[in-house]
């Protein structure tokens, strides 16, 4: 079983990202579950959401929060300063960050793999959300698909088309652009 934790802020589409990822895994023939760590969310407040992916339902999926994720996804880089994003992250796990900066610019231990993608600029280019509050969820999932290989871009595209309430094609294009442009720490 693979466990993924996502960190974002209210309005970025973090909860939807966790669901689209689960749906993409399902479309790849796997079993998946996603859920938010529900507070009483408001725009701008930190949001955490989780996705579990297993080969089949028989893998006995549990229903607790994820404390030792295999990978983490960071939709808002300012959270790196205020939250322990790496808490419980398994060695060798990916840290995928929405930022214009290079992956080398983050002081993240060598135990982890780091990737960055300018999901905000991509989202703005495809007019997802506003210029000041872009919805970066589909773009960062494209980067996730590329670096982890856990879900195929094909399944992700189908999941986005099914789950995006509006601008379906634009969301797919954002994911594809992030898939191509994500940078991996050397």
């Amino acid at each position, binding site marked *: 079983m693979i466990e993924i934790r996502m960190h974002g802020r209210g309005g970025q589409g973090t909860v939807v990202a*966790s*669901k689209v990822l*689960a*749906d993409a895994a*399902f479309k790849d023939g796997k*079993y*998946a*579950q*996603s*859920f*938010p760590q*529900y507070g*009483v969310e408001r725009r701008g407040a930190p949001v955490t959401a989780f996705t579990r992916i297993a080969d089949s*339902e028989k893998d*006995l*999926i*549990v*229903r*607790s*929060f994820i*404390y030792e994720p295999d990978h983490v996804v960071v939709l808002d880089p300012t959270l790196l300063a205020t939250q322990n994003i790496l808490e419980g992250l398994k060695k060798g796990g990916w840290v995928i960050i929405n930022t214009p900066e290079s992956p080398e610019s983050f002081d993240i231990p060598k135990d982890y793999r780091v990737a960055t993608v300018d999901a905000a600029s991509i989202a703005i280019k495809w007019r997802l959300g506003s210029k000041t509050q872009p919805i970066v969820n589909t773009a960062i999932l494209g980067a996730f698909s590329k670096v982890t290989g856990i879900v195929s871009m094909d399944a992700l595209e189908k999941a986005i088309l099914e789950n995006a309430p509006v601008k379906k094609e634009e969301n797919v294009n954002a994911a594809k652009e992030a898939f191509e442009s994500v940078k991996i720490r050397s």
Partner: protein
Amino acid sequence: MSFKKVLTGNHAVSYGATSARVQVISAYPITPQTTIVELLSEIVAEGKLDAIFVNVESEHSAMSACIGASAAGARAFTATSAQGLALMHEMLHWAAGARLPIVMANVNRAMAPPWSIWTEQNDSLSQRDTGWMQFYVESNQEAYDYVIIAYKVAEQVLLPAMLVLDAFVLSHTSEPVEIYDQEKVDEFLPPYEPKFAIEPGKPISYGALSKPDTYMEFRYKMQKAMEKAVDVMEKEMNLFNEMFGRNYGLVEPYMMDDADYVIVTSGAMTSTARAAVHEMREEGKKVGLLKMKTFRPFPFKKVREMLKGRKKVAVLDRNISFGHHGIFYEEIKSAMYPVEPKVPLYGYILGLGGRDVTVKDIKEIYEDLVKREEMEEIIWKGVKL
């Protein structure tokens, strides 16, 4: 054709009500229930379900509208949580006393104050004596399936039924759910044909005065209907299992055959407990799991069969009856009273107000259970003192 779709627990309930072809929906929004009726209102507005959606100003009115609809012979549905269910309380008695087969989804949410939106069973368990059947589901698939099963049973025994799912842990968790072919659901659940329905031109009374010379007989008949519901549940679940490939029962055992120690759970924490029991079995521990699915009618016979002869039993309660113990614990203790030799029962309170329940918690409860000597009726797990 049946198909699988990744759905939240709440949307699984909405699909369940749609598959059950409910005819009247009346509800008032409350977190974490709201998305159940939000999706249903869209389905009705799009013309995909031939139903009337009645907006009301409170949960009390929502249940009242369902009572009127059901008395007129319609299949009526509502959903609520916590304070909303409490506000319905008077009308819950009314629905059951008038023998109306209404089905409701209650998303378990802790009662306020202090305010909480997270899961706990005190809201639904506080309605224990209203005459409603109660089914506690573990997964989104069960949430979907039990809307359909609930109507099938309710319409035979003429008692209302409540399916209960955990706030967020199920209600806002997405996972694959199989939605069945409509023709097959129709075959399992044919249209509701009421024995008595109010209609213009054929006047009958509902809820008229019953003097001391008749009231008691109404209550006797309600109890008999509940007792009959045990057999009806079993019969219908067997048919459902056969038609839809499930494995449902009044209670559901896991790795129980040679288990010396048993952990009893209900609701969503069962999934986590099952994973814990699986891991402990791999470590050679003789532990099993018993999931309580049906709370009313209470499955006395099944509980006795399953727990007889065990070394120790831990009952896990995400609820508490203040001044007493965990509510499932007390119910199981009363069921086990005639069983000899006595099985020591230990009551654990955990997960109140949505506190997370982990595999580690379940394993620690098992270790604690094995070590204990005297029977303990109330053990707090994870409370910060």
